[in-house]
């Protein structure tokens, strides 16, 4: 795996995959208010059901210390089972990470109430604590 590109950042890079409806507040606004770290990359998908295992692994390869998917609560998904599909793929990625000797806690699935920003911010915090506990992945 390649080295983390931006070593100067205190918190390692976190990549979030979420669906278009998860949050309406822009990441810039949240970042300015200090609610999320600088080094957070939010990738919006039409639906989290679209996520593929390769994309999650790719995020790690691109330097992520942790990756999570924030999907709609299972009863709220526009596409009925999109977020449940994502959950399955996150589970599969966890197993793959284990095989690669990487802590499976570095990838996670979160179900969040649609349109609410608090759960996302909480998820980011959760992942940040996990990284702090697990140590750096990319600094070999």
């Amino acid at each position, binding site marked *: 795996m390649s080295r983390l590109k931006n070593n100067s950042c205190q918190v390692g890079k976190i990549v979030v995959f979420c669906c278009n409806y998860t*949050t*309406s*507040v*822009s990441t810039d*606004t*949240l970042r300015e*208010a200090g*609610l999320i770290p600088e080094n957070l990359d939010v990738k919006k998908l039409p639906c989290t059901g679209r996520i593929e295992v390769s994309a999650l692994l790719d995020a790690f390869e691109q330097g992520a210390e942790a990756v999570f998917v924030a999907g709609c609560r299972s009863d709220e998904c526009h596409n009925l089972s999109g977020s449940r599909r994502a959950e399955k793929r996150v589970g599969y990625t966890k197993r793959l990470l284990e095989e690669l000797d990487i802590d499976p806690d570095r990838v996670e699935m979160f179900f969040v109430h649609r*349109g*609410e*920003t*608090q759960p996302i*911010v909480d998820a980011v915090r959760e992942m940040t604590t996990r990284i702090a506990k697990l140590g750096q992945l990319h600094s070999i």
Partner: protein
Amino acid sequence: MVEAGRSPNIEILTSARLEALEGKPGRFTASVHQEPRFIDDDKCTACGTCTMYCPMPIVDLFNERLNITRVPHIDYAQAVPTSYYIDPRACLRINYETCNLCAQTCTAQAIDFSQKPRELSLDIGAVILAPGFGRTDLSVLAKYGYGRFLNVVTSMEFERLTCASGPTEGRLVRLSDRKPLKKIAFLQCVGSRDETCGNGYCSSVCCMYAIKEASVAKEHDPDLEIALFFMDVRTQGKGFDAARERAEEKYGLRVIRARIPRVDQVDGRLALTWTTDDGKSCSELFDMVVLSEGLNAPKDAEAIAEIAGIELNHYGFCRTLVDSPLAASRKGVYVAGAFQGPKDIPESVTQASGVAAMASELLSEVRNTQTVSLSYPEEDKAIESEGPRIGVFVCHCGSNIAGVVDVDAVRDYAGTLPDVVFSRDTLYSCSQDALKGIATKIKGNRLNRVVIAACSPRTHEPLFQETLRSIGLNAALIEMVNIRDQCSWVHSQEPEAATEKAKDLVRMAVAKARLLEPLEKTTVDVSPTALVIGGGAAGMTAALCIAEQGFECVLVERSDQLGGNLRRLVWTMDGQEASKVLDDLIKRVDGHPMVRVMLEAQVKDVSGYVGNFTSSIVKGGQPVAVDHGVIVIATGGRENRPKSYKYGRNKRVLTQLELEESLAKGKGFLKNIKNIVMIQCVGSRGEDMSHCSRLCCAQAIKNALKLKGIKPNIRIYCLYRDMRTYGFSEDLFKEARKKGVIFIRYEPDRRPEVIERDGRIKVRVFDRLLEDEIDIFACLVVLSVGIAPGDNDALARVLKTPLTPEGFFLEAHVKLRPVELASEGIYLCGLAHGPKPLDESIAQAKAAAAKAAIPLAKGQAEVASTVSRVDKAACIGCGVCESLCPFNAIRLFRVNKRRKAETITASCKGCGICASHCPTLAISMGGFTDEAIMAQIHAFAGEKCV
């Protein structure tokens, strides 16, 4: 309110509801159910001991549940009646027969648990419904996170938070953690213009009150950041636009045009997301979100309607017609205020006067058969003539004054001043119990001069003068010091300096008070005739209303026929034919024995004073003298004539009224017409005139719908700045959009252009959604040209009354005295007051008629006692005073071959010009003698009073 409480002819029944209404107009029987207060208002001194001892906390409903109070309480210190009451829901004594603490501690023995609900049967002549408005449903507020997020508050709650006597004593804090606020957002149209909650109408008042609340908040804390989210900015009231622009500039309020769909919370801060006109998505965090909740129909509207036997409209408000806006569907039942439709204070007050006139019309035959009049005790000349014994009362005004000025220090200081024998502070001097207290203190200490250091004498002096009169002292023996406006408000950031200034002002007032002398109050007989100037809808309505109340009326119209602007109108907003309304009015005016119509006549000169005016009316070149007691100005306005948009140069550019007139002539007019462009705010709001003309938006939509009705495939584009279809006209706006009328908003700095090329017209406008200029080919361009004031200058000069900068007549007080002029006996209605639609003009005309009928009905008018007096011995007869008096109130005549000046007391307005110009100081002003003013000035310099 206090005034209503003091009137001997108004009986106030609290906690009461109407149960049944039987009978016919003039002879109703109303059954009223009244819940007990459990505290006798006659005995209660409002001391507050019961609240202090009650062990049961309950939420304070008056303070929007933001505070805790106790079972026995008073909503606020100025409440009328100024008596505490017991909320039976949580009372231990009432529910469990225990406790009884309050009754034991009440020294006045006012608490009476044996009170039972009362069933009253009242014989009445007319019914006025004024139940106000209902509140926005919680489910609507919940959509914006209200109830879930503590810092999402309603505008009513915010109002309490900004109030000095409110739950936080005026400190602006987040409700979640009581930390200071930094950034606030106001969301408009919550529960208004929202079909999802069934409220399709516009609540009319929220835009302006949000601006007001934002301004007040900025006054509290200049560092606050405030954003207001509007759909349209609807500040259409008289002077409102100017006030809004001032506030935006002075306080740096951010105005954002977007409707926020929901509120999100992150770490206790509130996140708002919106999209701008050009499609950009924005989000920001705020500390507090204020929901500008709209006005609903009252909660029990249906019950009221059933009991009173009246109809409601589809939103649950009382149904009225454009030509009779104050009459409910049952005869003898009238409606005023927000129950008739959402409206602001000036319109509510106007309607209130209007319904009083309606009731007075109905009951004019039995006037004064059941009233009692207030009598005052004989003046105690003995006390008055003693040397000055001054009492000083310093008011806290809650924390309005006391929050800044050290009231105790001012009180103690006042006690050290010469001739001051008594000084005392009061929480609210104007509350009923405080007035009682002041009266007892004056009597008990044999005070004969009183200084009240409180708020403005303009609003409150009469109240304190009444108090003096009620205990046998002359009303002129009082001096007011305005330590609220002049100290705590303007110097709110410098409490110590404010306190020093308050002391200075009190010292000056005491110096003046030492020299105050009693003044005689005189009354004059009123000649029982009214002069109504202007024969339009407002003038005719006012004249008829006065006549129906039993007084003669002279209606003067400049042109050769009655009708004014109503003659040009074709349809009213509710679809009636305007000509029918007009014909009906003219028929009633012509047929009324008490109305004398003078056509082609003009008022050239007016002299006299309330009760005794004499006007010279020129008719056919011949002046006619008319004696009358009061004047109603209903001179109207006129359609503005713009110079822009090729108006007057291209015959296909019309005004809305011209379009209406053409449409009335028949469908042929629309042959070959496919595209129509309407342009709003031509002339209004900055082009030719600074004011908003209030009615053009609704008028344009009314005409657009008419066009669509005649020719459904006609294309109509409406270019606007803010669509101000306030109130129920919003329904028509919605209908127009449904029928395919296209609305394009433009900014004032990029106004549309009318371009002529090869005989065709196109209108070029910058479309903010497309971010590009578009050209619309138009077969017709229709301009909303707005209402310009009539030629008011000449009449204003004759009547010596001021005009607004826009050229309309200026009322005595925008909110509280909207149909009276500052000069007594002169009243105002219709377009002469400001632009307004027909129904509002009619309501206002009724209101002016109500006010005008007061001196006529009393038969006597009191003359102000602050008048000039000439010392004949000192007068040298130079005549300077006579030449300078703006009211012709001072005349020279010969006494023993010498010329001497004399004041015509009833004409004198007390301006003091004569006194200040008299070379021999022979003229002095009642209440403002030279000696008293000099003493005041000396006191300012800190010298010992002379």
